[in-house]
């Protein structure tokens, strides 16, 4: 893959290393944007060290919350991946900290305590993937109706037409 490459140590590498100095078992992949000289880091940490890594990144200057995503790897265990995309404006660098959780316990601790902006993104991951974020203040469905059955972005959810279930406001009589 042309975009991945091993490069000499730079200040960015030192910055990422400082974020991960307490994270055991972290793997780091460095990538380069298309049509650009800029690089960014993708870091995978175990779920135990996930919040600590995000917290360390925040302290190291990655103080802008950009994104939170989930991926269903289906056949590969652990099945689900959740990642946080953070930017350091002062160092002009991006870090994506991700973690993997198994199918029978899709539980990732919330980062809303560190970045309140993760609220909607974690709700989206819960809504579409069924990943639980203990500690989230309002973990409810966000894009789909409350009564929706299943988690559509999981790989075992079929693509196709499902009758839309409209909410009926239940009136107390």
């Amino acid at each position, binding site marked *: *893959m*042309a*975009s*991945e490459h091993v490069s000499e140590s730079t200040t960015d590498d030192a910055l990422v290393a400082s974020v991960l100095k307490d994270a055991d078992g972290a793997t780091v992949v460095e*990538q*380069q*944007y*298309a*049509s*650009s000289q*800029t690089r*960014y880091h*993708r870091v995978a940490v175990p779920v135990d060290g996930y919040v600590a890594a995000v917290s360390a990144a925040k302290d190291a200057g990655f*103080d*802008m*919350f*950009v*994104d939170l*995503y*989930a*991926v*269903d790897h289906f056949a590969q265990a652990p099945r689900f991946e959740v*990642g946080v*995309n953070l930017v350091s*404006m002062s160092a*002009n660098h*991006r870090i*994506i900290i991700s973690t993997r959780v198994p199918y029978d316990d899709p539980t990732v601790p919330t980062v*809303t*305590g560190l*970045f*309140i*902006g993760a*609220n*909607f*993104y974690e709700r989206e991951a819960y809504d*579409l993937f069924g990943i639980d974020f203990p500690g989230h*203040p*309002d973990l*409810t*469905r*966000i*894009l*789909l*109706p*409350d009564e929706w059955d299943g988690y*559509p*972005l999981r790989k075992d*959810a079929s*693509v196709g037409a499902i009758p839309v279930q409209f*909410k009926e*406001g*239940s*009136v*107390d*009589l």
Partner: protein
Amino acid sequence: MSDTTDTASEPTADMDTVPGHEPEAPSVADARREAHDIWVSGTEERFPFSTATNEGAQEMLPEADDPGAAMQAGIAVDDDYTSEPTVEPEERQIINMGPQHPSTHGVLRLHLEIEGETIRRVKPIIGYLHTGMEKTAETLTYAQGATNVTRMDYLAPFHNELAFSLTVEQLLGLEVPERASAIRVLMTELNRVSSHLLWAATQGMDIGALSMMIYGWRERETCLDFFEKTTGLRMNHNYIRVGGVAADLPDGWEDDVASLIATITVGIDEYEELLNDNPIFIDRTMGVGVMTPEECKQYGVTGPMARASGLNWDLRKTNPYCGIEQYEFDVPTGLHGDVFDRYIVRMEEMRQSLRIVQQVMDTMPSGDYRSEDRKVTPPPRKRIDESMEALIHHFKLFTEGFRVPEGAAYQSVEGPRGELGCYLVSKGGARPWRMHWRAPSFAAVQALPVMMTDSLLADVVASLASADPVLGDVDR
């Protein structure tokens, strides 16, 4: 019925006896009277009014010191909640705005908890336009992908296509020709102008400057005319594709772009003349919907909104793509982070975008408009008749598509609303395993309580319009 004159003078007299005319009129009237009795006069107590409804997940959180309620009150990061409560929390009123309200720019719904005229808490409710585009993308090849993503943020289709194409190119390690990059910059910057023009139109309309609405739509049309001439469509172009762009610029495009720049430059001056010193516009926008830089960072608010709050952050400068670093332009920033600063920033951004467009026009390189890698882009039509290899490439590309090496990549571009990012996971197939979008409007909608709380009900539309959310982008 034998006397024709009687029938003509009193046509209704015997209508009840004509088959097919008699039954409905009395029953409809009865039903209306019954409904009136039940719902208006209250003479029948069969269905008494109920104030208790169950909103499920869309209900406001019970007010306590928990972070969710603090977020709905917009005080989670910076507590600028200045006015003191005057009534008990249970005496506050819930006003429901949208999803069909014209000022919500789509199908956004807002729960507003108000105390008199003051907004206390806001809960944005989204999902009315969710069409599962991320799931759809998993069933489309990379070659088809741009058709799908262009429909997300329908006011910035080129930016969607560009972010998607760049992400795939990052995974492929594909270089695109210089001319393709220049065309991409040209189209995306014009798209930024057209999007900001539409924003100016709707912002003006929402706070009563109706002339601005007409002017904004009028000037935007000049952009769309050029898009139509180049791509064949006014919106949802599917023009920027993996490997380059779909077609070269049309003959005489320089004249079109030159006249477009002239028209819009004059237009922007006119709008500023119209609005900058307008006392009503200033009263409606200055000091309204304030966001601090810290709040922008915490909520992931980017683009013109973050710049209006004073964050000097523009991906075109910090992470340049498509060779945009070779063009000269400035990044306008504001000081106060209010609606007025967002207006000033966006107006200046339009000028800077036109500046880039002018430079692209002056320095447009010659060469191919798409990569000559036949595994990714189709061969020219002529070659298919001449070369067996070209025919095979064409066939493979349009049946199976091209395969992308295994891996994951993130790439973002500076869209009109902020950082528009695409996160792609490939398992080596011809279709993305997972496509996730980092939508700028999603973050902006999330931050609405910060802007709206502690302001007046009438300022809700001003704040909302200044966030410029596109619900296709929010719900995807």
